[in-house]
């Protein structure tokens, strides 16, 4: 008898927890309420209407590196963007330089600059992360009803880079070429490392 009471009490408890834990809806009702989100379309519009116009405000990479040495706080406050709190922030940068090496996954570029002449890495294979999405500062997480949509925008932006920006450049670029580039970089304010800067490209031009 005691056992039965224990089982019944357990069942009631589980039912109570389940009742207060989940709710069921028809998927199309939920989708209708939120209007289905097309990440590819959003990313394409973001690219042309927000990101590309914003590239005019990208900072020249040599200038940024000099500023990071002289006034790190100003460099981060004036030119970086990030959606969350933390030390990792993103910059939209531009520059020109000479190709030092063309490797399978990257292109090494010696930047032409008045002061700093750093060697930077243009990523040409593994494009991932949120650098480009977040570097412009033109995206607002509150526009999105769920995080998957927001993350998918990043995935679609990276897809544009992989499919439209990199291939025409990668097929022609060779050592010694002069190029112009615009792209996004990630820097950690607390543990700043400017020795091997990786640029996710937004625009690449060979200017020989």
């Amino acid at each position, binding site marked *: 008898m005691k056992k039965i009471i224990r089982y019944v009490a357990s069942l009631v408890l589980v039912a109570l*927890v389940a009742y*207060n*834990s*989940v*709710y*069921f*809806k*028809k*998927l*199309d*009702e*939920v989708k209708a309420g939120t209007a289905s989100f097309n990440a590819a379309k959003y990313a394409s519009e973001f690219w042309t209407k927000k990101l590309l116009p914003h590239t005019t405000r990208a900072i020249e990479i040599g200038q940024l590196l000099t500023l990071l040495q002289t006034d790190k706080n100003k460099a981060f406050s004036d030119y970086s963007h990030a*959606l*969350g*709190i933390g030390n990792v922030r993103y910059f939209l940068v531009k520059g020109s330089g000479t190709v030092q090496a063309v490797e399978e996954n990257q292109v090494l570029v010696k930047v032409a600059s008045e002061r700093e002449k750093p060697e930077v890495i243009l990523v040409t294979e593994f494009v*991932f992360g*949120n650098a480009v999405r977040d570097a412009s500062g033109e995206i607002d*997480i*509150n526009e*999105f009803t*769920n*995080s*998957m949509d*927001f*993350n998918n925008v*990043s*995935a679609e932006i990276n897809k544009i880079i992989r499919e439209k920006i990199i291939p025409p450049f990668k097929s022609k670029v060779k050592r010694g070429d002069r190029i112009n580039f615009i792209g996004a970089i990630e820097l950690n304010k*607390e*543990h700043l490392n400017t020795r091997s800067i990786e640029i996710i490209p937004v625009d690449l031009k060979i200017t020989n």
Partner: protein
Amino acid sequence: MNLQKYRADLIRFQSFIALFLLCLALSIMSDKFLTVSNAWNVMRQISVNICISTGMTLIVLTAGIDLSVGSVLALCGAITAGLLRNGIEFPSGNLFIGFTLFGAVVAGILTGSALGAFNGWAITKFKVPPFVATLAMLTIARGLTMLWTQGFPISGLGDTFLYFGTGWLLGIPVPVWISGTIVLIAVLITNKTRLGRYIYAIGGNESASKLSGINVSKVKITVYTIAGALAAVGGILVTSRLDSAQPNAGTSYELDSIAAVVIGGTSLSGGRGSILGTVQGAIIIGVLNNGLVLLNVSPFWQQVVKGFVILLAVIIDKSNSKND
């Protein structure tokens, strides 16, 4: 005789003395250390470590170890956040299952419990060494986290959820209330229940415990399940504090947790130690982290210092065991 008593007292209060000396040194070296706001900051930060270290203590008392707590923490935080934010969709059945805050938290904790139970089952059923079984779970849980999140953070979880990690209740941060409650329950379990006595007995001598009729497998599975659930609570606190479930959350948390347990005087060979000792160990680790940051010590050196502190604690533990 007096010397023996003095020595015994010294061993008993070694963590407390170490903590006192550490606080004294940091108060002298940094004027920002001994402030109320910094004290709450430290307490809030160590709450997560206290949650997972409490479970780790129970495991270490049985002479086991759990290397998967950091990954389990990340997975449970991500599952809670994912269910709360996105629910589950079944397009083939035109069904959407939404989760309330309560439901998402329960699901997160159940996930942690299930993973912990799996660890315990693998260890007891197949006699896999705890080190190996939980190392495997470390990878499994991290992989599942990446699959669940697709490698992206899950953010925007709502103000009510943020209250767990950032809120205050009666002038005390909510995470401190949560970790304090967990510690209280764990102290009661270890000191006042049959399960607690079994845990110490198994750690002290597993064969003798078996012969005396204790269901060792059941106790071990229970302990690993509790540890998994507590790692999940830690994951929910971390996610709530950051308003974001990060796929790489909890990386190397297992080391801080083991450090807290060892520094707190729990023997890695099992059977000896206490939850309150672990709390002291977690506070020492937290104060050390905080102090090194306030003193502007490079994070790379912080790791070196922490490593030496752990080594010192183990050497002292070994020396005490030999003298016992």
